[in-house]
């Protein structure tokens, strides 16, 4: 029996099955994605990166930055906070409901609490518990909101506010999500370190900004320039042992500028339907921490490993 063609056919079908699963279907599902709306607004997301940042993407690719840095934030679960925004008109009822919602709270503590609003009443609870608590507080004609808070070790480390999803990479080619974290995750580095000059100094001499860093210096992205009349505003500010000889300055080449622009454009924290989170109205542009919770210990909220159900 001539097995050859049979084996070929069988192998072809085996290959075709994984091709359908991980080439065709992703292209149909994810490859045809269009821009979407940021949650709760008509603002489209994502916006294509500005030209210099697009060039920076190519510099990132050419220098293999993805071999040390990932761009994928993970999320192990979602919890809810109940935040009291306004006291409303019926203060005694509000105090009573606060005690109901947070047993063990004393009257004085409750009074102190409502003096500094908005502030979280409860943190890290399930959605049902949060809705129930908010209902009780709202019934006392106060304004309580339920905030959606993604949690996970990456988020606790400040690397993002939510997980990265396909929409975050819609206009990038190639998509370099990275596979190692020899360096920090960069998915939201534009939020953490929005200053392009910081990035330029870091690229020139990583150990300037972080002594124990194992990142190699990218001095070849910069050039030594003779100071003509006045020092250029772009010249790097370096300490004495690294500064060039007097009369010279270190200027970033176009590649360094592009790379810095790209890094500053990296952010993936807009709330989306597929990755919901609540952004405090006052913090729409920058990321800040909500004030310390009522009666809770200070420090980061402990990551919850089970998704709130």
């Amino acid at each position, binding site marked *: 029996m001539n097995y050859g063609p049979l084996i070929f056919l069988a192998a072809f079908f085996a290959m075709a099955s994984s091709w359908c699963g991980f080439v065709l279907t*992703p292209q149909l599902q994810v490859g045809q994605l269009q821009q979407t709306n940021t949650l709760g607004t008509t603002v489209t997301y994502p916006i294509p990166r500005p030209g210099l940042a697009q060039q920076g993407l190519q510099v990132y690719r050419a220098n*293999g930055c993805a071999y040390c840095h990932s761009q994928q934030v993970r999320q192990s679960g979602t919890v809810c906070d109940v935040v009291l925004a306004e006291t409303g008109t019926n203060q005694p009822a509000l105090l009573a409901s606060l005690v109901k919602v947070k047993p063990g709270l004393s009257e004085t503590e409750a009074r102190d609490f409502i003096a500094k609003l908005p502030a979280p009443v409860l943190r890290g609870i399930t959605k049902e518990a949060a809705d129930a608590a908010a209902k009780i507080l709202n019934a006392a004609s106060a304004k309580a909101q339920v905030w959606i808070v993604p949690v996970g070790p990456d988020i606790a*480390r400040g690397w993002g506010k939510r997980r990265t999803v396909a*929409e975050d990479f819609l206009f990038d080619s190639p998509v370099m*999500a990275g596979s190692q974290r020899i360096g920090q995750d960069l998915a939201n580095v534009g939020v953490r370190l929005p200053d392009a000059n910081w990035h330029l100094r870091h690229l020139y001499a990583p150990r300037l900004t972080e002594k124990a860093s*194992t990142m*190699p210096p990218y*001095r070849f992205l910069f050039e030594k320039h003779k100071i003509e009349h006045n020092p250029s505003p772009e010249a790097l500010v370096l300490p004495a042992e690294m500064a060039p000889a007097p009369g010279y300055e270190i200027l970033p080449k176009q590649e360094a500028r592009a790379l810095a622009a790209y890094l500053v454009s990296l952010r993936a924290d807009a709330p989306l339907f597929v990755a919901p989170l609540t952004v405090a109205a006052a913090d729409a542009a920058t990321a800040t921490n909500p004030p310390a919770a009522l009666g809770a210990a200070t420090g980061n909220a402990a990551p919850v490993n089970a998704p709130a159900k």
Partner: protein
Amino acid sequence: MSQAPSSPPALAGAPSKIDASCRVPLLLMFICAAVWLVIASAFALIASIKFHSPDFLADCPWLTYGRVRPAYLNALLYGFCLQAGLGVGLWLLARLGRAPLAQPWLVIVGTLVWNLGVKFGIWGVLSGDGTGFQYLDMPGYAAWIMMLGCLLISLSGLLTFHQRRERALFVSQWFVFVALFWFPWTYSTAELLLVTWPVRGAAQVAIWGYYVANLEVTWLALIGLAAIFYFVPKLTRHQLHSHYLALFAFWMLILFGGWSGIPGGAPLPAWMPVLSTAATMLLLVPVVIVAVLIHQTVEGKWTRLMANPPLRFIALGAFAYLLAGLMRVASAGLDLHHPISLTWFAPAQAQLNAYGFFSLVMFGAIYWIVPQLAGMEFASAKLVRAHFWLALLGLLLSVVPLAIGGIVEELRLETSGISFMQVVKTTMPFLRASTIGDLLLGLGHVVFVVNLLGMVVRFYRPRAVSAYAAATMDLCAVKAKP
């Protein structure tokens, strides 16, 4: 030249005839592969040193870590693994089919074209043309040249399979035959959809994962297991325990291998990493099968696997396959809550798979095949032994510290009180140990190349000498004639 007393040399299906037909193409492939291996080791060493001494060669853009590491990986995979694998596969097809290699010129031209492509590819990666996809870093212009070379070589393999005299198939032939198609199919898909006409957005991550799984998990195992299932029974003079078990492993591999490549944290809908995890767990079955098959073939007497140097390499490679498979399963299982695949554990597992398993099996196969092709033993058995010990020690020192380092790194990353820099500092001693391992492996490769070249020189020198003598004798005769 060959010593095959049981079959007269005139018979076309005799091993000597088959080996003669394979000699030039395969020696060319193996030498080129060995040279790429040394080059890859040099890159690996440079990359490894840069971890704990980031200023090492930092001013040369061609040697920045982000370029030298993909140069190492691609030189290892495409320069050595694929080339040596195809060479060994062709020899297996020829021998098991009892027919000479078909159209050897196809293999010779294909090898030259392939190596040209790899040269362009590595040059492209080092000069900044890398694609940004790990394991697929070579720029498009190089990739399509390599593709052409691969097609020529595969064509010869297909013809060899088609023209076989022995119609009954041994299991290794199934594996090699499918491997001849598998790489061109998946490589061309990946190149077309990621490099030539890139798909949009995160779909690239899915297709990349598909390709990497098909290369690392399926293709390397297809050729590697073909060699293991051939050499273990042959060199221990036992029957392979079960034809059906081997084919069971074959089916599991080709059905589920390609599904196992999407990493857990990828920016893709949940069903993709979940299916990948499930497929990886299913790949435990071929790993178990290999263990059972080898155990039953040697009837439990493991010392039989130490009989001769090629077999030692292959046995160590099979053991590495088990370990790498278990590491992969562990990594996939933990990935949901403990993303160990983003730590040093993943390169350790990849190294154990591509190097510990595949490359060691290739070394064993080449150490057996080359003497058959040349009809003589290696000049120095000591060099072969030295290579074995360097490989074993180097592997232990490069894989084990990285694996442990990865576990430690993951535990510390999950503790939110520990800063990232502290985690980095913790991994330093492990990285230093692995540099020593890379150095030992590199030395082993130098030994390997020296040994191979020595064999080739010893084979061709008498011929060259006699050809020269014949030519000069004619000259003298002409001169002597009045």
